[in-house]
């Protein structure tokens, strides 16, 4: 018996499973007859889920097909949700970018973007404006 500490879990936020124990069927020396036996136990519901692995380490699980479909649906829903979040964030950034482009700038900022002469003009202009305000 081994304990699952959710090493492969955690992909769904807020859906952490409590720790649980499983029986691992070793595969390295599993013969055909033994495989048929454990599969029969699984079909009778005596071993559910049926876990395979070597060195007492769970590697694969046989689960009901309905559970597999439910898992796929869950993963798909999580993917769609993540994609919707991503698209919403993308739209928000594009809108922000458009808005900032349309918001304009000051002539000092424009001058500074040109280079040293523009920077000098912007400094002089700010100083002149400051002086004018103090008069």
């Amino acid at each position, binding site marked *: 018996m081994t304990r699952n500490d959710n090493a492969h879990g955690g992909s769904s936020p807020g859906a952490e499973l409590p720790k649980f124990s499983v029986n691992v069927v070793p595969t390295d020396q599993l013969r055909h007859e033994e495989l048929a036996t454990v599969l029969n136990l699984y079909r009778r519901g005596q071993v559910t889920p049926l876990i395979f692995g070597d060195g007492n380490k769970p590697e694969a699980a046989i689960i009901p097909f309905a559970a597999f479909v439910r898992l796929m649906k869950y993963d798909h829903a999580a993917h769609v949700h993540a994609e919707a979040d991503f698209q919403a964030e993308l739209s928000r950034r594009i809108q922000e970018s458009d808005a900032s482009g*349309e*918001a*304009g*700038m*000051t*002539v000092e900022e*424009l*001058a500074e*973007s*040109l*280079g*040293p*002469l*523009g920077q000098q*003009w912007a400094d002089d*202009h700010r100083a002149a404006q400051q002086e004018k305000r103090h008069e």
Partner: protein
Amino acid sequence: MSERRPVIRILPTAGLKQDLQALHDAALKKPQGPEGRLLRVALNELGRIQQGVPGTHPLGYMPSYPDLSDCETTYVGADPNAKPSHRIVWRERAPQRPGEPVIREIIALGERANGQAYHMAGQRLGRPVGFTLAELAAQRQPIASPSRPRQRLTGSFDTPSMNEPDHQFE
């Protein structure tokens, strides 16, 4: 109680930035040349536009130019004793919502000679010569329309009329 002036922000087009950058770079190369003074005067005029000062005059429609009747022109010259050699073409956009700044879109800084500044502005706004704003608005695809004679469009941008008297559209 003094009336509060609306906040004005300027919105330079990519072309206007190129106009200023070319002037700036030329002034850096020739510190004693007229470009440095012209750059400072142009920036001073942009500063006045930002402060809410009106342009030298609003532009009207003339068939031999792109329709810039929603724009203003501001004269710029480095030599105070000569006729201003350059023009700044710009237009104002009223705020869409209360509290938003007034945007003054600066479209072009170009030479007065041959109406260069106005042709540049028209090109940047996608306005061919000889079409009014109303005509352009009525056409869904004014430039790409195959029914429009091509020669008229290319001719209007590439070879502005050299015979056009400057005083008609200053």
